[in-house]
């Protein structure tokens, strides 16, 4: 169940990148998972959805994409600049 640890780390990286106040404006989180990364993509997406659905996030969508190799990357964040802060 280390997918939950990975999902928590993805959220921490988003906070480090944007600052906690900006997290409610995140609408999507893109993560790339290699086939040999030792991560079950569906499980990671489930964990991310649970975390991104709760404060300080406000229902951001996880987008987990598989690829060859062993990469495990936070690929991008989509941010709605019009969405007001909490």
């Amino acid at each position, binding site marked *: 169940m280390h997918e939950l640890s990975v999902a928590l*780390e*993805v959220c921490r*990286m988003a906070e480090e990148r944007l600052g906690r106040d900006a997290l409610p404006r995140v609408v999507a989180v893109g993560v790339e998972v290699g086939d040999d990364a*030792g991560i079950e993509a569906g499980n990671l997406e489930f964990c991310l959805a649970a975390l991104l659905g709760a404060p300080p996030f406000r229902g951001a969508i996880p987008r987990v994409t598989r690829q060859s190799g062993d990469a495990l*990357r*936070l690929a*991008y964040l989509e*941010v709605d*600049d019009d969405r007001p802060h909490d």
Partner: protein
Amino acid sequence: MTVRTIEIREPVMAKNDALAADVRRRLQAAGVRTFNLISSPGAGKTALLERTLADLGDDMRIAVVTGDVQTQNDADRLARYTDRLVQAVVTNGACHLDARQVLTALDAIDLGDTDLLFIENVGNLVCPASWDLGEDATVVLFSVTEGEDKPVKYPKAFRRARYAVISKLDLLPHVPFSLERAIHFAQQVNPELQFLLTSSLQSEGLEEWYGFLRAQRHGRRAA
């Protein structure tokens, strides 16, 4: 709605890897050789460490960090065989140790008075394989009661490891386990893997294990 995409493309393990690099720097500066022991639950990590501490404790200065999901049972077992520090990390449900936990545990260990450090990871052949702890090498244990196809079922653990200990050799006559096939499967996923065959209960292969550990210490001091 104005949506902006911020490209990041950073490894999720970057923070853990940076902490693992700190662990590695501290241990290498102190001349401490470090092994991360991984296996499925019940493969014999604690039993092997019990024997190692009992038999080598006067000869080598060995410290241990244990990781358990709950309880300090492993640390308590090991503490009977050494007055050196056995530092327990209770992960409270997490299925692996991470570098931050090891870095914290190092604060309680006198590294200047230590030759070898064992990190006894949580019993699990999946999750611990993804986390660098700052070790010099990973040792994967698997016992003859587990089935010879473990290496191909859990390839990441066997790819990460430099050494494999096949344990509970005393039970070999009683189980349908082919050492030849087990080694063949392991070499399929990691051709560089080096093997040690042990029985902690019957003392089989332990002299080879101890010789290996002594050579590691001497190699580090010569380096």
